[in-house]
């Protein structure tokens, strides 16, 4: 029987099939290599990074806002001061001084100290 004939003989092949299979050995579970430990995410670093990012964003936003405020307010203020003639400026100063001179708020009250500090009762 030639090799070609052998290959074509399906009956023979079915009989010999188990012999041609690779042997399967019983698996010893205890000898299986342990899988590498799953790395836990470093929460501290993540939180730290997020914190810095948030602070940075807030800081930049505030700085930009200040700059925008300055950019929008300064010309207006300059314009107001420039628009006022000397007489109006003097009136403004007088109004400010008048607010500071309100007699209902006493500016220099006497110090709240005990004027009768004495160890023994005073003899009358």
């Amino acid at each position: 029987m030639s090799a070609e004939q052998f290959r074509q003989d399906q009956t023979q092949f079915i009989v010999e099939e188990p012999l041609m299979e690779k042997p399967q050995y019983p698996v010893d579970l205890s000898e299986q290599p342990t899988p590498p430990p799953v790395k836990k995410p470093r929460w501290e670093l993540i939180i730290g990074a997020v914190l810095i990012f948030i602070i940075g964003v807030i800081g930049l936003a505030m700085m930009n806002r200040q700059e925008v405020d300055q950019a929008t307010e300064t010309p207006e203020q300059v314009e107001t001061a420039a628009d006022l003639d000397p007489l109006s400026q003097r009136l403004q100063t007088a109004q400010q001084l008048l607010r500071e001179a309100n007699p209902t708020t006493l500016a220099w009250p006497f110090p709240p100290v005990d004027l009768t500090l004495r160890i023994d009762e005073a003899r009358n």
Partner: protein
Amino acid sequence: MKKVLIVGLIGMLGLMMPWAIRAQEASPGASLDLNLEIVQLNEIYRGQLAEYRAAEKEFQIARDQYRQLQTLASINAVTEATREAMKLRAQVILTYMELLRVNLIAAEGVEISLKQLVIERLTVEQEWLQSHLQAIAAGTDREQFNQLADIFAGKQQGIQTVSQEAVSLLSVGKLQNVFDRLAALSEEVAASGASSSAITQSRELRETERTVAATRTSFQNLWTELNTTIREGKVAGFYDNLAKALNPVYTELNKLTSYLTELLRMR
């Protein structure tokens, strides 16, 4: 967690730097004038007052213990507590009077002769307080401190009177200063608007001139009264009714600013 805190702190510090630098750049260079001196005196005064309050509490505790126990230790403790409280009280009043003196020197609108008189009186009281401080430092026993307390009690009325004189002068002077500015301004506004019939015939100008005249009279009356009370050493009555006495003038000055604002708009 420590790492987070450290990283966070470094981040915050880094972000704060620009503001810190800006704040330093913004601070104006201050000159050593009277206003700066007043600011410094105010700070000293506040600090001394806080120290005095703590010392006064200590004194009260020590005095209660002395009155209950009557031991040698409690006598020593109350003597020292009294020394400290009396010393700080004198310092507080001294600084307060210096604050009034410097404010008076810097004040505009106060009649010169009255200003000079009250500054001299303040200086006399300050000198007495300095000598009182020396007596406190030299005091050794309880009896001496009782005597110092009696001496101070006899003097405190004079100190308060001079302080009231200074405060009255400063309060009237502040308003007089505003009035002087507004009166000069109203004259200039009237002169600058002389060619405009809208201004010369306006109700605002008439009201301005009327208010200036009325307020001038009110101030003359105020100064006359204050002059008399200060020279006679009877300022207490004026001082107690200071707000009541000055409110009408304050109202008139507010009206005057309103009229002047209208007149300036008309030009």
